[in-house]
């Protein structure tokens, strides 16, 4: 059953706000990277993935790996909203002893996590292994991986791309969150990433290039069937910091932490009711 896109937009606005608020309270960075892939996670977790939060380790579940692990705050918000743990649990994000750090922990520590990522270039090979395991075992689950564009600097991404094509692993779908930035510069300038779609095409993948914030476009790409049985890559053109005007396409928000005033401004832009802002009386934690 598919959730209407206007409802997904509402969910996305709320998760955007919670992610901004958590960044402020916990002092954790990568907000721009979180907001650029958020719509992809919402679309996958509400309308694509066959998963059951009550049976998180079901062997037949679809696998999802957030290979750009530095966007973990968005993954945690998504998993909480989908019921893998409670939204209240996330209030402890970043505190001493919490399971919720700046990157996803190993699966045994948190329901809903398939792989501990954060070191870039690991998620696609692991996802490929999961997809190959499905084939070997005759299981029909699908595997989804979100990469960042900066992550495509890593050689292991392209090693996996070559092998997935050779093995014709058509149960594997990769999204590249193509926000055109990496930590310290434009992803097309730091290394020669463009033309990105042509590269994946040359590597033997079924390539779609879409607006990564347009649920209808993402849906069309996800549903497209390939007659050649190739693995699928969806190059999602995204905006770093999407949804908060003063963060959009400003790479300072790779590391910057929003002030309380900035969180309130973001809340207004995202149509968040005042009673959900909940900053009064809470002191942001400082991290060195």
């Amino acid at each position, binding site marked *: 059953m598919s959730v209407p896109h206007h409802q997904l937009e509402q969910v996305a606005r709320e998760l955007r706000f919670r992610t901004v608020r958590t960044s402020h309270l916990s002092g954790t960075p990568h907000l721009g990277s979180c907001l650029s892939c958020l719509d992809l996670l919402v679309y996958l977790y509400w309308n694509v993935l066959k998963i059951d939060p009550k049976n998180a380790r079901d062997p037949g579940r679809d696998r999802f790996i957030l290979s750009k692990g530095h966007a973990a705050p968005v993954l945690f918000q998504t998993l909480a909203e989908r019921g893998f743990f409670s939204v209240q649990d996330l209030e402890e994000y970043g505190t001493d002893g919490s399971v919720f750090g700046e990157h996803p922990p190993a*699966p045994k520590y948190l329901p809903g996590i398939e792989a501990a990522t954060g*070191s870039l270039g690991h998620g696609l*090979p*692991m996802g*490929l292994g999961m997809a190959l*395991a499905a084939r070997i*075992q005759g299981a029909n689950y699908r595997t989804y991986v979100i990469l960042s564009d900066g992550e495509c600097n890593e050689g*292991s991404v392209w090693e996996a791309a070559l*092998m997935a094509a050779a093995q014709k692993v058509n149960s594997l779908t990769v999204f590249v969150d193509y926000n055109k930035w990496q930590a310290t510069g434009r992803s097309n300038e730091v290394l020669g990433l463009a033309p990105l779609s042509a590269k994946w095409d040359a590597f033997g993948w079924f390539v779609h290039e879409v607006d990564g914030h347009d649920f209808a476009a993402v849906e069309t790409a996800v549903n497209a069937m390939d007659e050649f049985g190739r693995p699928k890559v969806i190059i999602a053109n995204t905006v770093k910091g999407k949804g908060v005007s003063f963060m959009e396409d400003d790479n300072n928000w790779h590391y910057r932490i929003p002030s309380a005033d900035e969180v309130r401004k973001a809340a207004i832009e995202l149509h968040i009711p005042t009673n959900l802002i909940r900053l009064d009386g809470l002191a942001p934690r400082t991290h060195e």
Partner: protein
Amino acid sequence: MRNAFADEVTQLAAQDARIVLLSGDIGNRLFDRLRAQSPSQFINCGVAEANMMGVAAGMALSGLRPITYTITPFTTTRCLEQIRVDVAYHEAPVIIVGTGSGLSYASLGPTHHSLEDFAILRAIPNMRILAPWDAPSLRDVLKQSLRDTTPTYIRIGKKGEKDILPGSDVAALGRLTQLVKGEKVAIVAVGTVASEAVRAAEELKRVGIAATVSLAHTVKPLPEADLHGLFQTHQLIVTVEEHSLAAGFGESCVSCMQRGGFASTVLPLGVSDMFLSKAGSQQYARRQTGIDSVAIVEAVRGFFANAS
């Protein structure tokens, strides 16, 4: 050893559908029987070891028992971060097999030597590190490794290693296998260099020194209880490894002795801090690096000459 490995994997794969052999594009024809028997249980991952290790971890987290196989440096240091994060941190039941380890491929030069794998992998939590000495012990430790889900690294030789003892006599993981019982001096050898220890003990016997010979296939977890037994009953323990002295098996035995408060002497033999750049056979390389039977005999005789 590599032929025994291929044969054993083929047999095990026939009994256990979860086993998948991942090769880094080596072993031409070595796995033909496995491929014919069960094509889906063998995948050539190409010359892309970082990906191969990640794929293995993904498979292991999905219910399979993958075994990665290529020349030792390429399945250890080349893809170290994938071992550390994907395999060890995830506690993924991957078995990593490094062939041609130590100085087996001496003539191929330092790119193909592995003299630091114990040291590096020892420092990674959750890892088990094994080094069988001959074909029967390799078959045995492979079977033992599949009985639990501990991420495991097995370092093996190449071909032509002489069998030292039957597989049925091989100790459990984490124990030493005592081959000869002597007195005063014990030689503890790790992996294929055990053959040098056997030869050294025969030499020593000829000059009136009865040496205990113990074979170690488990570098981590260290066989502490059996080592304590040797420390209690022997004045000198010589360790031999085809590996750097730095953070190798010998150094871990020294610290084991010190932690236990024993008063015996542990003398580690291993490769000093160097790349062996001269070509030659494995035997030549062992001589050059001071880990052959001659070096063991000299170490033992030197100790007792100085002690008397």
